[in-house]
């Protein structure tokens, strides 16, 4: 078992080893038909130590975190936790794409302020990924006139932001 496999098992649970490749996870996945490698295949890559194949799969970023795979797995594996583990390793390896940039901004906003402002999240994502501008602007044009997004000057922070920061720093490294 190589280091990559060990790390995924540490993050997603040792029971991943018991996968029988039945494909129930893939059959339950709402975005499976759009994926390059199905969730079943991702688990196989992990168990075979095929790090590059796993980390370069677009599938990781098409997971909607709906947990359909997780409630159905006959072996009690949490396939979504495998995807989460792959996202963490992807970021730890210094790999970047538009999806991981979004995750990075989302996490940083919680870490720094305790809450997420949809206005600042969208604004920063648009700056970092200008290709998303048309989509975000047209969505904003739908929502802002309805009073559903306030144009904020400065993002709010909660009082307990230092505690939240410690949650990320002290629990995130474990």
């Amino acid at each position, binding site marked *: 078992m190589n280091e990559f496999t060990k790390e995924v098992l540490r*993050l997603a649970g040792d029971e991943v080893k018991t996968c029988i490749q039945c494909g129930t996870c893939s059959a339950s996945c*709402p*975005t499976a038909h*759009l994926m390059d490698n199905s969730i079943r295949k991702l688990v196989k890559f992990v168990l075979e130590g095929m790090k590059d194949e796993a980390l370069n799969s677009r599938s990781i*970023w*098409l*997971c*909607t*975190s*709906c*947990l*359909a795979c*997780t*409630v159905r797995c006959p072996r009690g594996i949490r396939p979504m*936790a495998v995807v*989460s*583990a792959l*996202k*963490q390793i992807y*970021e730890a390896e210094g790999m970047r794409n*538009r*999806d991981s940039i*979004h*995750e990075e901004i*989302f*996490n940083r906003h*919680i870490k720094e302020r*305790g*809450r*997420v*402002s*949809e*206005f600042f999240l*969208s604004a920063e*994502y648009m700056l970092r990924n200008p290709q*998303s501008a048309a*989509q*975000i602007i*047209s*969505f904003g044009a*739908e*929502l802002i006139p*309805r*009073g*559903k*997004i*306030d144009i904020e000057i400065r993002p709010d922070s*909660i*009082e*307990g932001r230092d*505690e*939240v920061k*410690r*949650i*990320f720093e*002290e*629990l*995130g490294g*474990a």
Partner: protein
Amino acid sequence: MKLAYYPGCVARATGKEYEISTRSVCSALGIELEEIDDWNCCGATHVSNELVAVGLAARNLARTELPVMTGCSICYSKLRSAVLRLEDNGVKRKVNSVLEREYTGAEVKHLIEVIMEVLEGADDGVIASLEGLKVAPYYGCLLTRPCGGIDSPENPAVLEKLLRTLGAEPVDFRLKMKCCGGPIFMTEEAAASDTAFKILECAKESGADAIMVVCPLCHLMLDANQHAMEKKFGAEIDLPVLYVTQLTGLALGLGVEELGMGMNSVSPAPVLEKLEAARGAEEEEGEVC
């Protein structure tokens, strides 16, 4: 009944009408909400590190002694998942080493459970009824997942039951459990819209007058994004998407303003007209008798 209320970040932005209608309905039903002081984001589906996600939820849960209620299915799922993980003493010890207030255990409820509880105990006269209205009950993904929550993750019936209690007719809705794609909308628009549009088409085919949702992200995908998707896929849907609290509020006789109905992207006017017509007919009938 007094509960701790966890609004979640979206309640303060794109889900404002959910928050407005939640407060109005709870007040009408005699449910007192005490907002958790200085609550933080639950991390939604974007915090991949499991222990951090559990820590974020635990900080919120440790800030009250009351049962915690939320209307957002994502927050509900994250808070509930954390309670399950925190049953492991090792996890609880690690998390408590960081928290200012110790987590000792918590009860998490979805708004629907609370509404059902009150309505089931109420007199029949409380409800003005949604008679004549056909509604597609949309569960989405995280209301029932992981297991052990409000209802079965495979074949739930709680929303149908609620609709019948309100006097509406739940239609048979094949894709009621299929995820709306909301969590990846910002980054993977094509995939998310592909998923959401299938749900809208299915609801339309079911003959519903409206879709009922229980999560602000589902609402964003099916309501706010509906016109854009109609254009993209070249098909007309024009189906109002109402929050569970908006429908409950209408059944209780609350006004459209109290229910934030002016904020919905797809006009709820056809639903209101149908209800008015049904009530008018009922009154006329009463006069004849």
